[in-house]
């Protein structure tokens, strides 16, 4: 078997194992949660008999191992189960919400990278300059910000005080056609910038430090000595190498993004998976929670496997690691 294929199989196998582990931990953690799914959705004057009926309907009256076996078997067949509370398939519940989460996370990632790279480069090329100092202070501050606090602050200033932007949701009802896209974009601004503000610091500071390091390397010194313009040395030689750790960070940050999206979507009533998770937690809707966590774990695992594979292709040393 060629080395590249062996490497890919190994990484994919590890990905599958990670997914199984995440699915199992999710299953067990939910069952350890205090509370009773039947009580969470039922009326307060439910009789004990009615509670038993609900538990039976949910399959929660079976032994834990039987529940786990059924869950894994369904998972293997791509079946995430039926929502306790909504009586519809979890896949439908998640598919309804997934596009909004994708829109929010991808747009925030794009804005972060688009703003972060030039900022990092400018800071690295003028170390200890005013911009560099601002970037360092801003970067550290940004990293220490708490997503919901940023969200509430933005909501208060731009939504309530200035009335520039809507304060919640993904679009206004009653708007159709082309205007709907504009309305969606308007609603996206505040949640997107909440995420951008808290993740930008990591990108800028990582890029800044690796670029400063790269620019001090022999090949950059040589390029300058050959008389290459500084712009070319920075953007063509230094940045290409400095971007490698930043690319890794994009993969690693995906997990953070997903977590951040849960909080952001809750603050802004954004109808993505994050808000869905919040609601499912309050109702102890185990199938929806299991499905959502498996989906999110799969997203992170796939992103990391792809990053590993890309690295393997770029750097042969990784394949033997």
């Amino acid at each position: 078997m060629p080395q590249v294929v062996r490497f890919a199989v190994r990484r994919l196998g590890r990905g599958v194992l990670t997914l199984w582990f995440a699915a199992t931990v999710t299953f067990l953690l939910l069952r350890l949660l205090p509370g009773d799914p039947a009580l969470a959705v039922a009326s307060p004057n439910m009789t004990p008999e009615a509670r038993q009926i609900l538990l039976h309907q949910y399959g929660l009256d079976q032994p834990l191992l039987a529940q786990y076996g059924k869950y894994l078997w369904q998972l293997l067949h791509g079946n995430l189960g039926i929502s306790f509370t909504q009586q519809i398939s979890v896949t439908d519940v998640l598919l309804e919400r997934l596009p909004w989460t994708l829109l929010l996370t991808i747009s925030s990632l794009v804005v972060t990278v688009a703003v972060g790279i030039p900022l990092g480069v400018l800071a690295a090329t003028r170390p200890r300059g005013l911009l560099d100092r601002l970037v360092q202070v801003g970067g550290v501050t940004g990293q220490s910000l708490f997503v919901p606090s940023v969200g509430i602050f933005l909501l208060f200033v731009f939504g309530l005080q200035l009335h520039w932007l809507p304060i919640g949701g993904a679009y206004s009802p009653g708007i159709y056609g082309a205007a709907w896209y504009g309305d969606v974009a308007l609603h996206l601004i505040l949640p997107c910038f909440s995420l951008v503000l808290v993740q930008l610091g990591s990108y800028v500071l990582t890029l800044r430090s690796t670029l400063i390091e790269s620019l001090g390397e022999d090949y950059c010194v040589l390029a300058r000595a050959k008389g290459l313009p500084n712009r070319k040395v920075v953007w063509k030689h230094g940045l290409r190498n400095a971007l490698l750790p930043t690319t890794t960070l994009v993969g690693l940050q995906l997990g953070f993004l997903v977590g951040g999206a849960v909080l952001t979507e809750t603050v802004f009533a954004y109808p993505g998976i994050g808000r869905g998770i919040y609601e499912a937690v309050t109702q102890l809707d185990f199938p929806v929670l299991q499905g959502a966590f498996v989906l999110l774990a799969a997203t992170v695992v796939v992103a990391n496997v792809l990053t590993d594979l890309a690295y393997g292709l770029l750097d042969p040393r990784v394949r033997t690691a």
Partner: protein
Amino acid sequence: MRVRTPLIAVSALALAATVAACGPSAPSKTADGGTDATLTIATTTDVVNFNPLVGNSRTDNWITSLMYPRLLTIDANGAKQPYLAKSFGYTNPTTGFYELRDDMKWSDGKPVTASDVAYTINAILKDKPAGNTTYGQLVNVDSASAPSPTRVELKLKTPDSTVVSEAGFWMNVVPQHVFEPAGSVANFPNNSNWVSAGPYKLTSFAKGQNYTLERVTPYPFAPNGTPTVAKIVYRVYPDVNTEILALKNGDVDLIANALPPAQVKNLQGASGIKVEEVPGLGYAHMTYNMKRKPLDNVKVRQALAHTVDYNAIRSVVLQGQAVSTGSSPIPPVLKEFVDPSLEEYNFDPNLSKQLLAEAGYGPGKTLTLSMIYSLQDAVTSQWATIVKDDAAKAGITINLQGMDRNTYLAKTAAGEYDIYAGNFAIMDDPTTNMALTYLPGGAINYSLVDDPALNELITKAQASTDKAEQKSLAQQAAKLVHANVYDNVMYMQNLYFAHSDKWSGFVIKPSELLSVVDPQSLANVTKS
């Protein structure tokens, strides 16, 4: 780089297309009477279940009640009034009946008949949609039948004088021709192609976003049979504070949730906003777990009842927006039943000390208890601290155990507490609610009381179809509860709802479940 640009473009297009799939399509125009106005209402939760026989969250109720009629409604005094049923009652102790009006239609043109009602009741009995409130109320019902298109009869297993009014008030009637082909009503999601009997029908929704309902005619409880507002849109916000921002911003016209007490005065003075006051039908209370010593001792319970400064709680935490029930489980809004002779336990730490001494507690032997409450309930969380501080004045230590709602519910169900603090949302019928609260095995008997004298009074009241006798029995039962501190009812909170002053004509109903978003209210509102 050359390869990446089209790749990014394709990805962006794919994402845009995916999101566009979530986009709404323009609704078709309707041309019946009324105005073209849209009323936008804020809520904090999504509809969990579109099937009114399963869903029981507040938003579920608000939206499905606009689509599926109830047999009865209540007036501002909490008295049951005709709605789909013109009249109701008992022909003999084991036969109840509803006589329906004949002018209500489903949105597909079919009439709402007694068959729909009988089907709904029998389906609940057969399929046991356990999350549903009505299932517990139909426990004494054997079956329902429809001897004529407008008459429904309930065959009872045992005399039950409360089931007709209780099931009539709580149960939504569903269209038999839609629900029956779907099989079990317990598993029917009912999430598309809705058929409604007005005043509104759900036409589209986006989870986490909004729910759009359009008017249905004829609706006999609206002017000229036509709801004045063409469309009702419910929008979902994260919490009531964001809803208030949305109302101030003009994004919504009405907030469906009751306002937190601290926001009421603030909004009453805000320009462009009107606040409606609605009497409450529920109450806040503490119950003392009588299965645990020394709470099985009446003197200890009385001592605890006298350590609470009820007035302070009502004026400080509730900002004067609550009334005393006289420590009675019959809320004063139920004017037919209320007994004005019952007086509230007075705040008297010295009397508490004396009662504790009689129970064997004093300086050498202090009493320490735990009290559970839900941290999601901001009002209870606040008064819990006052209760703890006041109890300390009588030498009682109360350890506060605030917890998340699910843990709180689990601990409540398991009886794992000394003191339970919480709220009951709607206590619309004293006899029914006393049966649930004070009979052994009652679903909300949190004090775990089992007093033969009390059991007899409540059981007799349940079986009596004589209103005066039922009232007398309920009042005697309330006296027993009061004297023995089987329940410590602290106050009944009035509810306040905010809306834009451009709207008027709301019909007030007691309780947060009906408030100003009851079908009869929304079918009559007008925009200036």
